[in-house]
């Protein structure tokens, strides 16, 4: 069976390491914060100017001056610091953030990403996505494997790019792929979701990929 949104988030949480500074995108990536292993010290960065992002506030304790990059009310922690947007993106662009987990519309086997625009249709903007993929040490994409039945893992993006050769790992509801974004070895299927077959993944993937010799089906 394909993974649920929570199972995808749980799988993404396995990429966290003790001491990491991490930026989580909007959507499924936000759910990753629910799966940080107990005892692991991970500081979440919010690109609007905060490190050490805490959980949602109790009802009645919302503070209009304390929001995350998705404009949701949040809280602070003992580790929290606040800073200006230029310092925030200095951290991001300067390679100080260890891991970014983002959503995507399209990804290619060389690690290209499109996640900000559908010409003529959606006018929202890239926000901080281009800076994150350009500057963060390791970039993980979490997304549905297909959209309206069409593959999202492609040989070439059809939508305007967010970045080229920027993705290290893709987690979908069907499988996990690693991408050698700097070398030339392309994309490798490393895990299948429970009861998902290699044939199903092949049928639903346009991008070229190799199959890892130790490919396994793992419960998220």
């Amino acid at each position, binding site marked *: 069976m394909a993974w649920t949104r929570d199972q995808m988030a749980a799988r993404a949480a396995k990429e966290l390491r003790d001491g990491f500074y991490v930026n989580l995108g909007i959507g499924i990536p936000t759910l990753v914060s629910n799966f940080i292993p107990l005892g692991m010290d991970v500081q979440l960065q919010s690109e*609007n100017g905060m490190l050490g992002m805490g959980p949602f506030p*109790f009802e009645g304790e*919302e503070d209009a001056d304390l929001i995350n990059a998705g404009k*949701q009310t949040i809280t602070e922690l003992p580790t929290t610091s606040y800073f200006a947007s*230029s310092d925030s993106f200095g951290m991001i662009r300067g390679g100080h953030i260890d891991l970014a987990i983002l959503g995507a519309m399209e990804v290619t086997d060389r690690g*290209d990403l499109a996640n900000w625009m559908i010409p003529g249709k959606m006018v929202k903007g890239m926000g*901080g996505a281009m800076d994150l993929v350009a500057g963060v040490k390791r970039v993980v994409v979490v997304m549905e494997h297909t959209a309206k039945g069409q593959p999202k893992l492609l040989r070439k993006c059809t939508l305007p790019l967010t*970045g080229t050769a920027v993705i290290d790992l893709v987690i979908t509801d069907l499988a996990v792929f690693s991408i050698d974004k700097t070398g030339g070895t392309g994309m490798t299927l490393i895990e299948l979701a429970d009861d998902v077959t290699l044939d199903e993944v092949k049928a639903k993937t346009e991008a070229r990929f190799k199959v890892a010799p130790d490919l396994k089906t793992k419960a998220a």
Partner: protein
Amino acid sequence: MNKIFPNARSALAGILKDGMTVMAGGFGLCGIPQILIEAIRDLKVKDLTVISNNAGVDGAGLGTLLETRQIKKMISSYVGENKLFERQYLSGELELEFNPQGTLAERIRAGGAGIPAFFTKTGVGTIIADGKELRDFDGATYVMERGLVADVSIIHAYKGDTEGNLVYRKTARNFNPMMASAGKVTVAEIEHLVAAGDIDPDAIHTPGIFVQRVVHAPNAAKLIEQRTTRPRNAA
């Protein structure tokens, strides 16, 4: 020199002109100069180029100036919360220049610091780099981005003194400090006005040199876009 003005209208009087460039602080509706935006609406200047991370929402923030069609062009990173914006843009009424958020922040910081251009990795290989100079440094390709300045910057701070020294609160800081430095004239609305000397000099976020005019706005409404909470009995 007195920097304190009795209200938003008087603080903006004489410095607004049709066709000028205005920077407006804030992220979403957090830390936006709402009463200064309303004063710009009331003073009816038009054809403005507005530099701001977002474009407000329908009925609040810069949405106020979209309704009155006073904005000709927006320079922003994300405008997804505003239906009116989308309508005006798709119909061709409104010009739009998207900047990656970090590039926008750095362009403003650079502008305020007298740096006309800089190179960044952000946007290389995307439409953002179209027509811009590329250069390789240490084996990687970078794109040149220009510094930004404004005729007038309008910002929001939590606390300010009579010298114009400012302190922001929590994530309401965002774009406000850089915009304060990049405005030829910077007007700050502040929630709490204190005497010079009442703020610990070590705690000042924006030194008064960057702030020409201050208006005390103790009752400015602060709106929440996404009110998210957790139950009290949660573990």
